[in-house]
C-alpha cells in the first residue's frame, strides 16, 4: 500500500496513484485531526494533492523528493512559512522612528553631494 494509515497518521510512500485518493479522503474525514507524513513520497497523483489542498490537513513531515519539496509543496500548504523564510520578518520596536533616522542619514548624504 503506498499509503499506510494508522489512527493518527497517514504515511504516503513512493508513488501514490489516483486509486488512493478516495481512501485518503475518507480517512481524513474520519480522522480530521490526522497528520500526513510525506517524507518518503516520491510522487503523488494530482487527485491526492487536490485532497490535501482542499482539506488542509496537518502535514507532519515534508517530502524529501526534490520536485515536491521545491515546487509543489513550497508554498501552497504553508504560504506563511515560506514567505517568512525569505523575507526575514523583522519587526523593529519603533519602525517609524527607525525609518526617520535612516531617512535623515540619507538626506544629509544627499546634501553633501549637492554642495561638495
Amino acid at each position, binding site marked *: 500500500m503506498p499509503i499506510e494509515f494508522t489512527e493518527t497518521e497517514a504515511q504516503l510512500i513512493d508513488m501514490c496513484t489516483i486509486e488512493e485518493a478516495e481512501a485518503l479522503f475518507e480517512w481524513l474525514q474520519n480522522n480530521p485531526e490526522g497528520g500526513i507524513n510525506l517524507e518518503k513520497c516520491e*510522487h503523488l497523483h494530482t*487527485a491526492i*494533492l487536490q485532497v490535501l489542498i482542499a482539506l488542509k490537513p496537518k502535514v507532519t513531515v515534508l517530502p524529501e523528493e526534490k520536485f515536491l519539496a521545491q515546487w509543489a509543496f513550497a508554498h501552497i500548504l504553508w504560504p506563511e512559512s515560506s514567505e517568512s523564510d525569505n523575507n526575514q520578518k523583522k519587526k523593529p520596536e519603533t519602525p517609524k522612528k527607525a525609518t526617520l533616522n535612516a531617512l535623515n542619514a540619507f538626506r544629509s548624504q544627499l546634501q553633501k*553631494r549637492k554642495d561638495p
Partner: protein
Amino acid sequence: MNPLLVHFLSEARELLEDAAKGLLALEENPTHGATMNQVFRAMHTLKGASGLFTEYSAITKVVHAGEDLLDGVREGRLALNSDMMDHLLDASDLVNSWLDSIENNEKLPDGADHEGEALAKNLRAWLENPDGAAQDTQQKREQKILQSVSWLQQLPEHQRIKAFKESLESHDPLYAIQYTPDAQCFFTGDDPLHQMRQTPDIRSLRITHQNPWPATELFDAYSCNLKFQALSTAPKEELDEHFLYIADQTEITEIAPHFLILPTGDREESEILAEFVEDALVLCEDQAWDSLRKAVSSLLKTEDAALWHTSALRWIDLLLTYPTPRSVWIETLLSAMDKNEFSGWPDYTVEENGQGESDAALEILPAEKTMFLNLIQAQKEILAMPCTPDCREGRLAAVNQVLKNCFTRLNMTTQLDALKKAIEASGEACSLEPTKNLLTPLLQAETQQQSASPATMPGVGAALTKEEGRRLGRRASDREPQETRQKTLRVDQSRIDNIMDLVGELVVAKNSISYLAQRAETEHKNREMSRELKDQYSVVNRISEDLQSAVMQVRMLPVSFVFQRFPRLVRDLSRKLGKKINLVVQGENTEADKNVIEDLSDPLIHLVRNSLDHGIEMPEVRRATGKSAEGTIQLIAYQEEDKVAIEINDDGKGIDAKKVKEKALSKGLINEEQAEQMEEQEAVELILQPGFSMAPQITDLSGRGVGMDVVNSAVERAGGTLSLSSTLGKGTKVKLSLPMTMAVTRVMMIYQNNQTYGVPFEIVVETVRVNRSEIYQIKDREVVVLRGKVIPLFRLVNVLGLPPEESNQDRDLEAILIIRFKDEDVGIIVDDFAEGVDIILKKMEGIVSGLRHFGGTALLGDGSVLLVLNFKELL
C-alpha cells in the same frame, strides 16, 4: 510561355491560397501568431516573386500594400477586423484573377493598374486611419499581456526574484504558463502534477484552485479543481511540445523579465516615504546608484517586510545590484510607491489586494464584452425555454445572479435597476416574460453598436514585435523559423497524363504477350516457347502493375484540394444571407484521383450552397425551434473500401417529404397513386429527378431551376453514386460515393452476337447458367427464381437492339449475368461469358460522346476495341 513565368504562376497561386486560408483562420483566432506569420510570409514571398516581372507591377503594388497592412497587424499597431479581412481577401481575389489573365494571354487585363491602385489605397488607408480602432501602442500591448498574466504576482516573491535574475543574466526568454486542467482529466489518464513535474526548466510553480472548494460532503476527489501556474525558461517549441496534448487547457505567454517586478503585500500610507521617493527620484536622474542603494538598504532594515512598499523597495534593491541599473524600472517603482500603486501598469494589482475601487475600473476588452453579450444572450435563451412552475423560481434566481454580475462588470447601472424591477415583476406575475422582455431590446442595441464600430480584436501576448523579441533575448535559432526544404517537384499535369497514357499502352501491349503465347502453342505447336512467353508475361505484368500504381499515387490528391475553398464560400455566403454557420471539415486528407477530385468540386459547391440556402434556417427561426442560432454544416470525407465517400450534413430544416410529393405531382413526375404509395425516403429522393427545384423563390445562390438532378447526374457521370436522407426539422444528409481512381477499371467481358462487351466488375454479382425451362414469363417480363428470390431478366440482345441470332434459339442453358442495379439484383441474359481484364477506360469522345449507353471504350491486347456497357442508361 517563359518557364520562369510558368513557375511564378503556379507558385503565386499556391501562395495566394495559403494566404487566403491563413486569413480565414485569423478571423477565427486573430491572435494566432504562427498563422499571422504564415500569411505575412506568403504575401512577402509573392511580392518578391512578382517583382521579377516589371510588366506586372500592379501585382507587386497590391501585394505590397497587403503586406504592409499585415505587418501593421503583426506588430500590433492595428487590430484585425472583418472589414480589413474583406479588403485583404479582395486583394487576393483580384490578384488571382490577374494570374488567370496572365496565364491566358500573358498580360494583365485592361485597367488593372487603376484597379490595383484603388485597392492598394484602400489597404493603406487602414494603416493611416485605423477607423476608430484604437491604435495599440507598445505600452498598451504590454498592458494587455500583463493583464492576461496578472496571476504572476501571486507567485512567491523569492521565486520571481530568482527567475528575474536568471532571465536577465542568461537572456533566455521567459514563459508564463497557466494550465487549467479539464475537470474530467483524471478519467482520461492525465496527471497534471506529473505534467508540471516534467515541464522543462521550471522556475516557479503555484498550485491553486479553479473554483472555491465545495463543502466536504460535495467534494469530488476525481474532479480536478486545481490550476497550475508556472514560469519556465525553456524554448517555446519545447514547451509547446510538452503541452501539445493539452494545448487547449494551457496558456503559454512570453513575458519580459520586468513583468515579474510586482510588489505585493499590505499597503500603508506613509508620509515619510513620500519624501524618500522625492529624493530618490533625484538620485535616479543623476544616476547616483550607490547613494540610492545605501538609502534603500537602510530603509529595508527598518520597514515591515510584509508591507507593499517594502516589497517595492526589495525590487529596487535588486535592480540596483546590476552595474547599470535600468532607471526606467526603478523610476516606475518609485513613482508607484509614491502613489501607493502602479501607474505604469495600473489596476491589475488591485483585485488581489482587495484595495481597488471596484472591478468597474478595469478596462473592458472588446472580446470580454462579446463574451458577456453571449452570456446575456444565453440567459435569454434559457428564459425562452419552456419550464414547469416548480423550476421557474430557481431558473429566475440563477438568471438574475448571472445578469447582475454581467451588468455590474459592464457598468450598466441603469440596466441593473431595470433588472431588479423585472425580476420582481416576474416573481409577481409567475412568468419569465418580464425579464425576457428586458433583454431583447438591450441585446439588439448592443449588436447594432458592435456591427457599427468594428470591434477591436484582442491581441494579447501573441505578436511580439521584432524589436521586443530582441529585447527579450529571444534565441537566435527561433527568430528565423527553420523551414524544412520540401522535397516536392512541381510538374505540369499534362506530363503525368502523358505517362498515364503510356502506362495504358504498356498494359495493352503486355496483354498481347499472352495472345502470342496462345498462338505459339496453337499455330506453331511450340509448347516450350509458349511457356517461356507466359513466364515473361508474368514478369512484365508485375512490373506494369507496379508502374501503374506508382503513377496512380502521383495522381492522387487529398480532398482538401476541393474542401479548402469552402471556408471562404461559407463565410461569404453566410454573411450575405445573414445566417450563422459553423463549417466542420473532417478527413480532408482522404485521397482520390485528380480527375475524381476535379469532377467533385462542382457538385460539392452546389450541395454546400443548397445546405446554406435551403437547409440552414435564419438564426431567429432556429432559436424559435430550440436549436442553437448557429447552424452546422459538416463536410466529411473518408475511404470506404475502394471508394471515396463524402458526406455533406447540415442541421437545418430538412426536406419536407409531403411538399416534395405535391411538387412532383404538380410537375407530373409522379401520379397520384404513386404519391400515395411512396414512402418518405423515396419521396425525398424525388428531388434528384430532372427538372425538380424546391426553392420557393430564385435566389442569388441556388434555385435557378437546375438543382439536385444536375448534381446527381454529374456524380453518376464520374462513376459515383449519391444518396440522400433527411429528417424534417433535424437536417439533411447527402452522401457521395466515388471511385478512388478512374484510370484503371477491371471489367468482365461477355459475348453477344460475336461481339465482346465489357461490364464493370463492381456491379457484377455472379454468373449463372440456368436451364431454359427455369425461366418463367410474367406478363411481358422474363424472370428466374434463384435461391428463392425472383430476379427480373433482360436479354442483352434486346436491350442493345441487336438482331436475334438463329444459332442461339435452341440452346438449353442460358448464360445469365447477375448485376447489382439500383440496389437490386437484375439478370442479363448474354450469349456467353469471357474472362475479366484490366483496361484503361477512355471516355467516348467526339461525335459518339452523346452515346450514354456505353461507359467508354478500351483497347484490348489483340488490338480490338472493347465497348463497356453502362447499365444505368441501358435498363
